């Protein structure tokens, strides 16, 4: 990790009360993001990625309980009062969601949404805000921005809407952008464009980004560091290059193996991960991945592995039977 730490998440746990009992959505997660850096969070559905991002933004459902600390720019977001939090969010935080259908207000024009956000944050005159909106839309690659400002979200395609959502998120120059599966609802061809757009704007604005996805392929070329989540816990964490060179956690390996490969022979069976994630209302005694893991033994079922450092302190994993380095390198 280089540069000053912008966000540090210390032992964050999120509990959701459900009719079937307490659901631990996020289980003691520690993460740090440096200023201007990109962290990828990878995991399958229900692994707690989104809840973790909501915990960082302090936007959890009202009944959820959060423990641990979320230090942003030296301030604990979990403990500062509503006004401070609101100002901090307005100045420094922004979020882009998965589904551009629902992340824009359906009854207001694009222009109204952008201009009002700008006016609320930067106290701009209407003319200045208008001009700035045009610039922002142009910056996120929307042709004919003046016309788009007068249109409603449903008149735009999915990719366009996601660009608008990104423009709104970028409008107040955030220090940290949380992109929660920003491309999952989009076409594959648009996915790459949106990810490139995010990367470009991030470099230009020197803003930190948390990229949440279930696709290891998405984080591969676009993040500095990756955290793999499973059942609410971080099970492996490493600088991106190190992770892909020698992954240690069997779950990461299985995730990577589950990506279809272009050079595979036709009709090659895809090695899916068998079974399902554990029921989060019934925590397992041992490793959460044990029931699905092919290296499992008795110890895994009884004892929960903690994150330990691999050969470098940057690379951590939580496993009793990590993939041997020689083998990992061969993969």
């Amino acid at each position, binding site marked *: 990790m280089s540069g000053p730490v912008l966000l540090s998440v210390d032992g964050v746990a999120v509990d959701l009360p459900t009719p079937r009992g307490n659901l631990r959505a996020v289980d003691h997660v520690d993460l740090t993001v440096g200023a201007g850096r990109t962290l990828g969070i990878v995991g399958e559905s229900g692994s707690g990625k989104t809840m973790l991002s909501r915990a960082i933004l302090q936007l959890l459902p009202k009944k959820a309980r959060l423990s641990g600390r979320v230090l942003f720019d030296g301030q604990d977001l979990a403990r500062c009062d509503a006004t401070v939090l*609101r100002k901090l969010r*307005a100045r420094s*935080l922004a979020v882009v969601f998965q589904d551009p*259908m*629902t992340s824009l207000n*359906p009854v207001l024009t694009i222009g109204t949404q952008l201009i009002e956000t700008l006016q609320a944050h930067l106290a701009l005159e209407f003319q200045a805000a208008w001009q700035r909106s045009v610039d922002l839309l142009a910056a996120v690659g929307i042709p004919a921005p003046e016309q788009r400002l007068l249109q409603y979200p449903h008149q735009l395609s999915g990719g366009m809407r996601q660009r608008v959502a990104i423009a709104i998120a970028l409008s107040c120059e955030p220090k940290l952008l949380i992109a929660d599966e920003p491309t999952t609802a989009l*076409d594959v061809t648009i996915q790459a464009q949106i990810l490139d757009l995010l990367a470009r704007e991030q470099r230009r604005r020197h803003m930190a980004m948390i990229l949440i996805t279930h696709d290891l392929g998405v984080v591969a070329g676009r993040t500095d560091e990756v955290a793999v989540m499973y059942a609410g816990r971080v099970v492996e964490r490493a600088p991106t290059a190190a992770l892909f060179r020698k992954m240690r956690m069997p779950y990461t390996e299985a995730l990577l193996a589950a990506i279809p490969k272009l050079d595979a022979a036709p009709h090659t069976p895809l090695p899916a991960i068998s079974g399902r994630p554990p029921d989060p209302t019934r925590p397992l005694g041992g490793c959460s991945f044990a029931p699905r893991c092919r290296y499992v033994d008795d110890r895994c079922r009884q004892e929960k592995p903690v994150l330990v450092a691999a050969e470098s302190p940057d690379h951590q994993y939580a496993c009793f039977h990590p993939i041997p380095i020689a083998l990992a390198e061969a993969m």
Partner: protein
Amino acid sequence: MATLELAISDDVAAAPARRRRSLGPLFWAAIGWIALVLAVAILAPVLPLPSPIDMDMLERRAPFSVEHWLGTHGPGRDELARAIFGARISLIVGLCAPVIGLTIGGALGLLAGYFRGRFEALVVGSMDVLLAFPPLILALAVTAYLGQSILYLTLIIGVLGIPAFMRVARASTLTLARREFVIAAEALGATHLRILLRELLPNVMLPLIAFFLLGVAVTIVAEGVLSFLGLGVPPPIPSWGSMIGEGRESLDVAPRLAFMPAIAMFLTVLSFNLIGDSLRALTDPRQGAL
């Protein structure tokens, strides 16, 4: 991808045509009727009409004539003048009472749906109490203590409409409040006030306005019922409901006395419903988007 884009642009191109078709002649007929009723109601004092209150004892229950276009009723008042002045009462009550429901009920529903918790329980609970209260008893009690007037009539019907508006507003707020665009606004540091007014209200307004026009129609009928029962505006001020009530007495001799105000009310209520439906379909920018 190409096919998907094509499908989207087709949809956009087709939308205006579909909308134009939905404004059929019925809609314009409804607009025309409402405009006519509004115009004569507003212009009633300056129109060359006989007084709706003066009695012409020589022309009691007279048939249609040049002097009295729609004839006269039992005590000899001009029916056309009474129908037109009655429209003023029906429209004043019909438009003002739902405004009370819309503003108070809408605001309560929006706040209850957004803030949830104890406030919501309190609002929903008190609305249930109000709903459980028999409306006719309330109307009787108010008119017995405070007397009959347009103001009290409007207030009674308005207050009774609050729970329905509250429920509509709360229901749509509940579905919207955890939508991602609200969370995104919150993440950008929007205040509660801003989220309520700019993110939620424009969305909640659409169902509320459609419900408002329905409310106008229902209120016109409710005012008619109350006036019919003698709980409305005091005689001899005419209203459609009291005209139907008075016409009831001579239903066998001159059924037109009851039917003409009833037809006027029927057309007005139908027109408001038609306009409400068409406007909702026309102004909903979410068409096909959600």
